[in-house]
């Protein structure tokens, strides 16, 4: 059952329900708002974001990254360190030049290099949704933070209902069966 289109459909509708009863009416309009922004990002002003998101796809191993989150993360990383744009450019060049098979290979090749930290910082941003430690850290992504995706077929993302009441009587999927995200 879990992960079938029907179950997924139920999940989405529950989530919408939650938004209506929950946070803000704006939540209802989120999808169209998002796609409009994504289109905007394709334009001139969004070139940097597009590049950052493209590199982030390689860095995270996941294609389905939200460009809006990408834009916020990029702005935040730049604001945090003036060196970031150069480091990002250097990382992009490293990938172009040495063509590592995947991020694991890139990570290994960068050990001992200051760019290693930059790489992990970008990955942590997408996974955790924050780029700083501490209680006041600004959150750029929550329900779409990547760290909530590997177990999302079985474990709820806090505050989001997973499915209808008593969904938890079903047997969970095997640990080895990684959901697509």
């Amino acid at each position, binding site marked *: 059952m879990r992960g079938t289109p029907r179950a997924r459909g139920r999940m989405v509708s529950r989530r919408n329900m939650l938004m209506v009863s929950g946070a803000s009416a704006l939540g209802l309009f989120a999808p169209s708002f998002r796609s409009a922004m994504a289109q905007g990002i394709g334009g001139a002003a969004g070139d940097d974001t597009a590049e950052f998101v493209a590199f982030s796809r390689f860095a995270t191993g996941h294609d389905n990254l939200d460009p809006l989150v990408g834009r916020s993360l990029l702005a935040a990383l730049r604001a945090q360190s003036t060196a970031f744009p150069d480091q990002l450019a250097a990382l992009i060049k490293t990938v172009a030049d040495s063509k590592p098979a995947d991020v694991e290979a890139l990570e290994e090749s960068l050990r001992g290099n200051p760019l290693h930290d930059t790489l992990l910082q970008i990955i942590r941003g997408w996974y955790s949704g924050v780029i700083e430690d501490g209680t006041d850290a600004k959150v750029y992504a929550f329900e779409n933070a990547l760290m909530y995706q590997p177990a999302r077929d079985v474990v709820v993302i806090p505050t989001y209902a997973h499915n209808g009441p*008593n969904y*938890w009587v079903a047997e*969970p999927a095997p640990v080895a069966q990684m959901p697509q995200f």
Partner: protein
Amino acid sequence: MAQDTQTADVVIVGAGICGSMLAHKLARNGLSVLLLDAGPHRDRDQIVENWRNMPPNNKSLYDYATPYPSVPWAPHTNYFPDNGYLIVKGPDASAYRQGIIKGVGGTTWHWAASSWRYLPNDFRLKSTYGVGRDYAMSYDELEPYYYAAELEMGVKGPNGQEIIPSAPRKNPWPMDSMPYGPGDRLFTEIVKPLGYDNTPVPQARNSRPYDGRPQCCGNNNCMPICPIGAMYHGVYGAWKAERHGARIIANAVVYAIETDAKNNIVAMNYYDPDKGTHRVVARTFVIAANGIETPKLLLLAANDRNPNGIANSSDQVGRNMMDHPGIGMSFQAAEPVWAGGGSVQMSSITNFRDGAFRSERAAIQIGYNNTAQNSRAGMKALSLGLVGKKLDEEIRRRSAHGVDIYANHEILPNPENRLVLSKDHRDALGIPHPEVTYDVGDYVRKSAVLSRQHLMKIAQAMGGTEIEMTPYFTPNNHITGGAIMGHDPKDSVVDQWLRTHDHPNLFLATGATMAASGTVNSTLTMAALSLRAGDAILEDMKHG
């Protein structure tokens, strides 16, 4: 002096679960009720948003306070980082870092809603086992009020299941338990051959639509906020009270109490956030400001006639501070457990709630914590510096295999475990912070040696790795004892109706009155005691 005066039949200080349920009962019975709360109104949607916007590290460390911003005129505890509101001292200071929330609805906004009855022997610890103190009433006298509270809160429980020991019931729980998720199922199975009976926790959460609130859909976010209202909190009582005509004033910090020559309470005074003063007059007054703030207010409000504090001729106000000192353990189980299916606390081991051993050492409750492990799994895996597939696999593995268990201990009332007004820390209104000195005592320490063995045995049976156990005692927010009940006005603060011995028209509707901590979460007992006090108040009103 006071700028304005408001009057009511009954003034209740504190719109938490105790004050609100009592306000509802009194208003429903035709009394005019004024409910004052130090903190603001709180909005569920905003709390959900606040939590979503909290850093994942806070989520992984179970920071439940940050979504409820503390206000300068009514600060409450927050340990992320420690805001210094509650000052704790003594050998077990860390075990008294309690969570409380100020605002209409009170601390149960972020509770787990585990709603147990105490056992008959918890009410007569001294007469049965020769230790601690007895309640000023028996279990049987409280039984009808337990049921009234369960009906009001909507408690689901293991109807039809025989659990030993259990509190005797005249009526079934209003709702049946919901089924376990994978974690509680596996835990129950694994501990059974070790001789532990893991049984459903009665919970104030809907296993079917109940009282206008929806059925629990298992989003496992009970602490810090149920996003859909399937879990009961004090605010529902406050709203019902309001619908029956009670008036609620938020941001009203009671700080002074006026008494007459007969030591009746004449009026109370409160500050608004700008320190403007207001006066409230009533026939009967109730303080329902929780186990920390009730004794604090009684001490703060000392006046010429009551120089050691209101209701404190016995010198027991602020003494006997209790909770359930806990030991926490976490590990990675050999098999996938998948914590997080259903609510955050579904089951617990109750074999050691009672027995002859209580003459020497504390009774305990052992439990499995069903809070989803994904926040913690994500942060841990990231801290290992993993990337790519390995990172995803590690997060999934930890989400599936992570286990948290705990053992909570009964504690004896000890007058030296004491809350006083801080001499050097004051809030924005100039009111001293509470300061608690805490030592769990040998009764707990003796039992804790065995608790650690129980936990280790369970971890081993689950093939645990990365086993970590807190070397210190943890707090459990079950704040009891600070205005203890008893028959003798010389050594207790309230009588069996929660009426203060010193002031005929002042009641304390709070866990502070509880004379023994028992082993289980104590709020249902607080609520039942408060409803029982309501009958005394209604009776008083009949006779003028």
